[in-house]
């Protein structure tokens, strides 16, 4: 074993959220607001597979926002899931070393969203539609988790598990 921590201590370690006895160092290196610091991938000509994971979750945040506007009674149920998905988007952008969206762009998007809520041209978002999107994000993160780097695998696996949990909450 690579760690000196006694097995009797494991229950305490588990229950205090430290996790695997050998994982404490890595975990502490990967925690912090707003999300984990993940080493970026080696530059490559192929698109980074994490980009697709990011794009899906950004679209999902927009879908939650739209659902909240269309069905305000669902907002209390959807808001925690929407906010956690946004946290994941922030962490993914960090992992991909992408700049944060500018406040101007955010403001324009918000303005467009408000306009579009006044003129409802978007198709209605249903819980089943949200579930379908969430399940898709779980599947794609799980697929990336199998082949990504050892540095990224815990992060991407966590994203897959989170989506499965969100799916449960939308049932």
């Amino acid at each position, binding site marked *: *074993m*690579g*760690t000196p921590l006694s*097995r*009797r*201590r*494991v*229950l*305490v*370690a*588990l*229950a*205090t*959220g*430290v*996790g*695997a*006895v*050998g*994982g404490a160092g*890595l*975990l502490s290196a*990967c*925690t912090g607001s707003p*999300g*984990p610091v993940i080493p970026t991938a080696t530059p490559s000509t192929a698109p980074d597979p994490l980009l697709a994971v990011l794009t899906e979750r950004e679209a999902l945040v927009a879908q939650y926002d739209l659902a909240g506007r269309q069905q305000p009674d669902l907002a209390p149920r959807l808001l*925690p*899931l929407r906010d*956690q*998905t946004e*946290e*994941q988007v922030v*962490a993914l952008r960090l992992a991909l070393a992408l700049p944060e969206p500018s406040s101007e762009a955010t403001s324009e998007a918000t303005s467009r969203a408000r306009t579009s809520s006044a003129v409802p041209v978007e198709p209605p978002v249903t819980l089943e539609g949200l579930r379908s999107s969430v399940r898709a994000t779980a599947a794609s993160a*799980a697929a990336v*988790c*199998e*082949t990504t780097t*050892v*540095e990224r*695998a*815990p*992060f991407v*696996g*966590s*994203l*897959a*598990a*989170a989506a*499965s*949990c*969100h799916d*449960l*909450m939308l049932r």
Partner: protein
Amino acid sequence: MTEVDALQDALAGEHAVIWGYGVVGAEAAEQHLPAVRVAEQAHRTRRDDTADLLRSMSAEPIEAEAYYELPFPVTDPASAVSLAVHLEQGAAAAWRFVLGQTEDAELRRTALVALTESALQAVQWRLQAGIAPATVAFPGQ
């Protein structure tokens, strides 16, 4: 750390979780006992599967301890459910850690299934405990 070491840590975690569920069952409310039994059985199955996997890698699975320290007193149904939440969070963390210790796709699938099932069980216990939100952004972290 090798993937065998990481799996041994995950196995140690499963031993501890099974022991912990014994405490949870002793203090849990009557209506929660079926869920406690199901959750404990899931970890017994995972423990056995992990031990088999280690043997297939020519490693001797570590044994359970006779006693584990509790992180906080468990004296009533509420603290029992709190312990269940913490146990599942810990198991999720252990399996999340395994993901970063191997490049083997099959082992990663195994670890991801375990991480996900513990994360889902933690959600169920948080719902029982009335903890909101019941989900977290990064299970196992």
